[in-house]
């Protein structure tokens, strides 16, 4: 069976620190896959390796059957992976509208910009109101919406969200997960990194639990949610 | 010594027998006389350097065409070879260094033992404009002269001279400012002169600054009756850059092809034929070589001490700069010249030559 994204025995170092050891995982088209784990488990490192911001030490990443290893980040984006990094990566000095336009930077995306923009504005009516404002002036939740909206403009085949709930108030976190559910319904393939383990598992089809750079557990998200072992792995001796 | 006399300094070093260590290329081969010329061929002074080189090469060509210089040891005339190098330290190697275009006020205090110099003194050159003014009809004499002198050793040396003579001749500078080198914007100076109703201007500065100043004077509508420049206004580029705006501007010079000396006219024509512009300097460089060659000829050896003794206290008549009488310190004085630009030609009018050019008062920009 061909997976949309397939990670094989991936090892990655972040600066001096090796963060992933022989990680294997896959994402199928139309599914939401969550990667959960404690701080420092290597979740963000994995995402950065997929989107080309980090060069793996060994192993392979296949996207639609083609390797991504050694491909520059901008080329990986062109192949259909949009990555909303931890910290959102907004251009704070640019306006909301300009941030969204840059989401359509790639030549093959540009023709669909108007339609995609409408779609994003229906998802996030707030952004439409604030389109002339500098991105840096938005609230945290709005910034996260903009970051996701900007990534959606490119109509990615795979959308990576790295800790979208980080630093948001509980109400906004709930909205964020409603959005993820909606994207799922629309058929967007999602790779979701979350610390908020319960919500992350609820939102996902499949999940991987990372622990100190290794895949500790994997499987159907619903099953993992019920598994007491997950909590234990996740919080160590916290039980 | 290399850096001491930068600026316009030019000289020739009798290099024969100088051990050059690694660098065989410059070593004197038997059967020829090697002369070194520390000429700036790169950097901001390269413009002067190239004129020097041209004049030296011509002088060497001329002497070699005449068969060379007779050397007793060899028992025959030997050809001369010129070696151009960036910098050398003649005094330190006790090699005779024949110099020109260096002001005695810089040279004399050093008490060099191994060099001789012919040039005019800064004060004598600084007196020239006042002598000219005094010969003008009463109405044309400046009422409010101004002085702009560059912030360099030369500029200050000259500036002091101008101030002293102004006092002596009874003039007061309405504006007397140091002139920033390479600043490109002299509107502050010009506005100040305008505000002070300046009618005559003495400037000492580089070619490019002088061009900029005259241009900006025209732009900002500052007209003077008399504009006399040193160092910057005598180059061919000055007239080339300003076109007809260079008319009436007066320049200094070390030499003129209008001089009534043997070879002067031919030398000037030879230069103009090649570069399509006049020169008021090459004669000094050519004469520099003439003196050195004749001194070697006189003693019949390339021994530095002997050649030096032949120059110091010696008399050399009828060079392209005229007769030179060296004193016991090795200094010979020549006269500074003044030339007026007219249709891209430099017309010698000081020192006056019979039937020569008469200086014209500058017309206001609007009436030209």
């Amino acid at each position, binding site marked *: 069976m061909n997976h949309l994204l397939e990670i094989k025995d991936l090892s990655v170092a972040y600066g001096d620190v090796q963060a992933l050891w022989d990680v294997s995982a896959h994402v199928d088209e139309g599914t939401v896959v969550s990667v959960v784990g404690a701080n420092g488990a290597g979740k963000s490192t994995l995402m950065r390796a997929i989107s080309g911001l980090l060069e793996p030490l060994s192993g392979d990443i296949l996207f639609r059957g083609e390797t991504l290893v050694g491909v520059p980040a901008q080329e990986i984006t062109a192949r259909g992976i949009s990555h909303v990094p931890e910290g959102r990566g907004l251009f704070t000095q640019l306006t909301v509208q300009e941030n969204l336009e840059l989401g359509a930077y790639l030549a093959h995306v540009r023709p669909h910009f108007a339609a995609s923009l409408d779609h994003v504005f229906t998802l996030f009516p707030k952004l439409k109101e604030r389109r002339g404002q500098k991105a840096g002036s938005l609230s945290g939740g709005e910034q996260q919406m903009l970051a996701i909206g900007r990534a959606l403009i490119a109509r990615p085949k795979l959308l990576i969200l790295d800790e979208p709930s980080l630093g948001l108030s509980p109400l906004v976190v709930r909205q964020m997960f409603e959005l993820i559910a909606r994207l799922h319904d629309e058929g967007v393939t999602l790779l979701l990194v979350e610390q908020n383990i319960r919500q992350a598992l609820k939102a996902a089809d499949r999940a991987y639990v990372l622990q100190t750079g290794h895949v500790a557990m994997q499987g159907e998200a619903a099953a993992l949610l019920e598994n007491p072992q997950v909590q234990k792995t996740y919080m160590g001796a916290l039980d | 010594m290399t*850096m001491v006399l930068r600026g316009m300094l030019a000289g020739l070093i009798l290099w024969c027998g*100088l051990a050059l260590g690694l660098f065989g290329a410059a070593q004197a081969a038997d059967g020829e006389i090697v002369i070194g010329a520390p*000429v700036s061929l790169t950097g901001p002074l390269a413009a002067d350097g190239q004129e020097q080189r041209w004049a030296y090469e011509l002088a060497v060509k001329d002497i070699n065409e005449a068969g060379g210089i007779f050397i007793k040891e060899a028992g025959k005339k030997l050809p001369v070879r010129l070696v151009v190098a960036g910098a050398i330290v003649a005094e330190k190697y006790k090699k005779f260094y024949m110099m020109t275009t260096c002001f005695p006020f810089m040279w004399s205090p050093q*008490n060099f033992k191994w060099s001789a110099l012919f040039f005019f003194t800064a004060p004598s050159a600084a007196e020239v404009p006042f002598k000219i003014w005094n010969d003008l009809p009463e109405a044309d004499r400046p009422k409010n002269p101004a002085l702009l002198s560059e*912030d360099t050793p030369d*500029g*200050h*040396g000259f500036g002091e001279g101008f101030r002293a003579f102004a006092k002596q001749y009874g003039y007061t500078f309405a504006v007397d400012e140091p002139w920033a080198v390479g600043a490109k914007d002299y509107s502050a100076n010009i506005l100040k002169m305008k505000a002070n109703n300046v009618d005559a201007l003495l400037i000492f500065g580089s070619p490019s600054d002088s061009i900029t100043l005259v241009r900006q004077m025209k732009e900002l509508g500052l007209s003077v009756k008399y504009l006399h420049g040193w160092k910057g206004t005598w180059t061919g580029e000055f007239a080339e850059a300003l076109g007809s705006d260079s008319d009436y501007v007066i320049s200094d010079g070390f030499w003129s092809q209008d001089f009534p000396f043997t070879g002067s006219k031919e030398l000037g024509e030879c230069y103009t034929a090649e570069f399509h512009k006049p020169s008021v300097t090459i004669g000094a460089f050519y004469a520099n070589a003439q003196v050195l060659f004749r001194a070697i000829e006189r003693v019949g050896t390339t021994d530095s001490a002997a050649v030096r003794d032949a120059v110091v206290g010696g008399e050399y008549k009828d060079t392209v700069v005229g007769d030179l009488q060296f004193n016991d310190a090795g200094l010979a004085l020549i006269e500074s010249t003044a030339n007026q630009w007219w249709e891209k030609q430099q017309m010698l009018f000081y020192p006056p030559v019979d039937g020569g050019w008469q200086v014209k008062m500058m017309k206001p920009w609007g009436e030209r």
Partner: protein
Amino acid sequence: MTREKRIIGLSAIIVAALALLPFVPGAADSYLFFLLYLFFLYTIIGQAWNLVAGYTGQISLGQHAFFGLGAYTAALVWSRGLFGAEHVYYFDPLTLIASGLVAAAFALVIGFPLLSKLRGDYFALGTLGFGEIVRVAFVKGGSYTGGPFGIVLPSSLYESLRPHYWLGLGLAAGLTLLIFWIRRSSLGLALVAIRDDEMAASSNGVNVLKYKLVAFALGAFFTGMAGCLQAYYLFHVSPEGFLNLNWTLYPILIAVIGGSGTVLGPVIGALAVTVVFSYANIFFPELHPIFSGLAIILVMLFMPNGIMRLRFRGRA
């Protein structure tokens, strides 16, 4: 260790041979002798710059100010007879040290605000501004500094290049030895720690500002002494000759080509620069600066670590 001992032994032999060279008949009159003097001078200023940039990671673009300050100190002390009329100023240890001290004092005064407020590019630009201010101040200094003409010293004292050569050799070898020693001393620990990781260094108790200042002042001290040495050679201290930006560009070129942050890098770099400049000057008098420019670019493109090995690792 044995390799290091061999290098030390070899260096000692070379220095001894160089020290004896002036006794070889005719040697002191050769062009090579002059080149060796230049090589020593370049080594001093290269090492001095390297002390700041190579060991604490701060790029100084104001070295020409220190070179000029040193030279002017010597010229002023001498021409005004500040140590008494009977004092011999030519090759006088007191004057030499005064030259270094004045430069170092300026380094401390200007270094304190610059080093505490600025780093990286900003520090480089700040020192460049300082250098230009010093230059203009000397040009405009009137009778105190001799203005743009500067100060002329009695060149009739000159007899041979030997004392310059020996002093240059002594300073160059001494400074190199000092840096070698510093590298092993507790001061060296602090400097290298700052270069390698400023934040860790301060967390380990190193007073980062203090040691950056020490290195900056020490570099200025030696650059000032080099200025004094060159003043003894030229007998004419002027803004054009001594406060020229070349005196900042040369040490950078020397240290970078040789390999900054290494003990012998600036020595190798000084040798390379002396040879390349001199050859180019003799054989391609009109073109040599083109080659110098090209040399910098090529070295940076293909040998960014210098001949020895370069390391500017400092983390913010």
